[in-house]
Each structure stands twice: as C-alpha cells, then as structure tokens.
C-alpha cells in the first residue's frame, strides 16, 4: 500500500536527515507515533487545523528545514489552497506535500472526501512544482526521496488504486506497448495504466507511462506523438490537456483527454464503482478510445 510506503520512507528520512520535518493534521498521526517519539521537535501534529499545518510548514522552511506535509488530498490541497499559494510559494520556500485519498479512494465517504481537482489546483501554482502520481506502492520510496532531496515544491499523490507492478524511471514517458511509427499515442498517468493497457490490447495504439505529470515530459511526448494523442489521468479530465496542447502547438493533432468528470455523482459505492462510472475502467476507456479513433471522426 502506498500509504504504508510513505510512512516507512518518511520515518527513515526523519532519522537519516536532520533537516526533514513532518507536519500533520491528525491524519496518520498514529502511524507516525514511533517517529514522533524519536524526533519530537520535527514530527509536529497540529491537530485538525489544515491552514496551520501549511503555515507551520512555511515557517519551518523559512528556518531552513525541509517539511513534509500530509493529509487527505481534499484537506491538504483544497482546504488550505491559499496557504500553499502564500505560505510556501509567495514566501519563496517550498515543502513536499503528500496527499492520500486520490480522486475517489474514499468513495463511501462521499463528496467531502473526494478531490479529483487536486492536481489541477497545484497546476495553477508556480511552475516549479513537481507532481508525482505513483502507480504502485513500490514506486513511492524513490519518488518521495527524490522530492525531499530536491529543494523545489512537490506534490505526491498517493492512492489505494494501483497497477499490478511498479515501474521505475525518473518520470520521463516510458513506452510500455509500441504499436509502431505514427500509431496513436496513449499516455497513462499513474494507476490507470493497467486499465489503459487492457482497453487497447487489440488496437494499434502505443501506450506510454509516466508517474510524473509535472513537469510533463514534453520532449518525450514530441518524440512519441503522431497525429492522435489520448491522455488518461486518474484525476480531473483534461488536467494535462493544456500541456499537451502547448507541446504540440506546431503540429496538427487531435487530443482525447480522459479522467474524472466534473459533475458530482452524489453516489457512494466503492472506488472501483467510481472508476467505472467515470469511464476509466478498461471497458469504458475502450469505448472512448474506439469512438475517438473511429474512421471518419475528425
């Protein structure tokens, strides 16, 4: 599980690097109790106070520490958005934000615990942000370590949804299935890869994977893309459409941007149910991709 990988790696980082600090707002506090016992000055649980969580992170960074900030994505990114904008970016300091809950991991909890817009919101900030969307728990340790070691702002988006196996790499687009020159290119971000591979198994579509939508691998995209690009993201549909559009501005191309829809479904159920309802399961993706590639379209 990604969350456990995050807890284990962060616990190691706190022991290895005196510069790291962890700021919590009750979420996962019990999992970090051993680390808090060893590093009481650097594991800080402010209670259910997300604005303060980010403000404290900004203050820690102003003194030279490297804060890791963690909660459910809606509370980390959406509730405290202005603190991210002002207490980190505007102060010229940064932190590593680690969100759990993904788009609809907590489907049974309803709208209050869903945050498909998290990456889109981060994408409104300074363009120095790195966004990591691991597709498997085993991808988490290296991504978290790289984010902490860098001095820039980073958002790690963890989910209970995952692919069958981890894929390494530095976030550059990696071809998982090659349909040859000129074939439509499907870019899968993080945990949607397995469904995307199944969806186009018998279609002539090249599939590339990334767990780092920001900065998006523009050079890799330009090298792989033909006239048709399909983007499959596990968060708000179209979040990376502008990046792809900018990257291919000098080429005639068509883009299909798939992801989580904007409409509030007002349904509980499971994460798998929501995957299906948003058309992000293999069958739904296949329907969308087939329609996009159907002869005569465009």
């Amino acid at each position, binding site marked *: 599980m990604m969350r456990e990988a995050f807890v284990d790696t962060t616990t190691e980082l706190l022991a290895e690097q005196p510069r790291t*600090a962890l*700021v919590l707002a009750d979420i996962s506090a019990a999992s970090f109790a051993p680390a808090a016992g060893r590093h009481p*000055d*650097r594991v*800080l649980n*402010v*209670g259910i*106070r997300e*604005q*303060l969580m*980010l*403000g*404290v*992170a*900004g*203050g*820690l*960074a*102003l*003194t*030279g*520490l490297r*804060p890791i900030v963690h909660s459910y994505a809606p509370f980390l990114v959406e509730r405290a958005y*202005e*603190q991210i904008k*002002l*207490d980190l970016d*505007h*102060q*010229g300091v940064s932190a590593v934000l680690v969100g759990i809950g993904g788009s609809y991991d907590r489907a049974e909890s309803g709208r209050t615990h869903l945050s498909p817009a998290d990456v889109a919101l981060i994408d409104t900030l300074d363009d120095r942000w790195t966004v990591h969307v691991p597709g498997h728990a085993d991808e988490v340790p290296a991504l978290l370590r790289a984010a902490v070691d860098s001095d820039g702002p980073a958002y790690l988006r963890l989910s209970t949804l995952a692919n069958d196996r981890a894929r390494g790499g530095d976030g550059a687009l990696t071809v998982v299935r090659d349909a040859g020159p000129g074939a439509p290119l499907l870019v899968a971000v993080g945990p949607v890869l397995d469904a995307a591979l199944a969806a186009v198994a018998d279609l002539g579509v090249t599939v590339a994977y990334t767990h780092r939508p920001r900065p998006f691998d523009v050079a890799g995209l330009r090298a792989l893309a033909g006239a048709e690009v399909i983007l499959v993201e596990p968060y708000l549909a179209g979040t990376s459409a502008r990046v792809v559009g900018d990257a291919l501005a000098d080429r005639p191309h068509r883009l299909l941007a798939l992801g989580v829809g904007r409409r509030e479904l007002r349904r509980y159920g499971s994460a798998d149910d929501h995957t299906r309802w948003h058309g992000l399961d293999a069958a739904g993706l296949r329907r969308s991709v087939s329609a996009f590639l159907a002869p005569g379209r465009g």
Partner: protein
Amino acid sequence: MDFKLQASGMTIMTASTATPGADPPCRPPSLPPQIAALLERIRAGREFGPNVYSTIDVLRVLYERVLRITPATVDAPDRDRFLLSKGHAVAGYYAVLAARGFVPADWLDDHGGPDSRLGDHPDRVLVPGVEIGSGSLGHGLGLGVGTALGLRAQGLTTPRVYVLLGDAELDEGSNHEAIAYAGAIGLPNLTAVVVDNASASHGWAGGIAARFTVNGWSAATVDGRDHDALHAALTGQDGTRPHVVVAVVENGE
C-alpha cells in the same frame, strides 16, 4: 486616557496613563524628525490610513529597543524574527526599516512604482530584513508558529519570533488555529503583538487578550503609544509559554 488592564494569565503590565487622550483620529503621533521625514517621502502627498499611525510606535520600539537584528544580520540563523502579518501597515514599516539602515531611503520615493521593491504589501523576496510577504490577513501567526518550531528544532533557543497583527485581522479563523496550538504546546519563543485600534467590525467581547490567555498564553495589554510600557510588555515573556502584547491605540477606523 485610561486603559483597561486585563489580568490575563500570570502577566499584568502596568499601562501608562500619562498619554493625553486628546489625539484626534488619524493624527500622527509625535515622531522624531528622521522617521517623520521618511514617512513623508513614502506618503508623497497622499492620505495615510489610520493603520499607519496606529502601528508606528510599536514598530519603533521593536526595532529600536527589542529586536536583535541589524542590516548585517538579516540572514543570521540566530537573529530575532519580526513578521508583519497585517501587511497593509507598510508605510511605517518601510520608514523604520529605512531609518535602521535595512533599505536605502531613496527606495521610499518610488513606493509602488513598476521597478520598486516596495509595494502596498511587503515582499520578503524583494526587501532586505522583511521576514514574510504578507497582505492577505491571517497568515503571519501560522508562519510565526512554524518559524518558532523550526528554530527550536535546530537548537536555536535564543531568538524570539514576534508577529504583529491587528484586532480586525483576528477575525480570520486561521489565527485561532495558531493561538490554540501555540498555547497547547507552550511555545515559549513566540510573541504575538496585536495592535488594537478597535477596527474589528464586530469587536471582541471579553477582550482580545482573553482569546490568548484561555489557551495558555501570557498577556499584557498596554498603551500602544507608551514606549516604556511597550518595551516592558514586549520583553515580558516568562519563558514557558507564548506571550501576547495587546497594544491599544486610539485611532479607530
């Protein structure tokens, strides 16, 4: 005029009653010629809001008598920190920074210009000695709590962190997250200064200091024009918990 002393926490400061109560609203306090001249350069013929004159005395006492920071130590890890949370109180702030040599005085003449480093709200990236960029109310105290914790985590127990807020700024709920948490953990190197010019739309029934003391802070409420009283209050920390100074001034908006 008389100031109601709030017997808050363990600390009760004696406020001066010598200040005449006859100042009409918005009249500048008596200022030394250097500060007055610098303020005039920033003002450049415009009207200053009441916040400028309500804050200048606190700023002067902090920079002239309390803060261990000079233009040579703006990056020193063990410097005291001053965080201006009410970022609109900027004219007096810039004047004091210029008077103390943090910024060249001629920067004041181009306040808000396209190439100026000095805007209507301060930007820490642009102005030496400015610890935070502020303007949106309710951000300074959380940053101050984090700064105090960061210093503690690095074994820097000498420097103090001062955060200046306004009574109306306390309307923002983020302040109350910081007040409750700092009190709960007994953060001794944090001092909040609330300039109270009675500008909060709905007031603070029961007093401002009570918001802090109920959470375990020590508090002093003093005449915000009385430099000796301010100095005593601003250095009145007991070393075991966060401290608030409520500086009462008469210039309401």
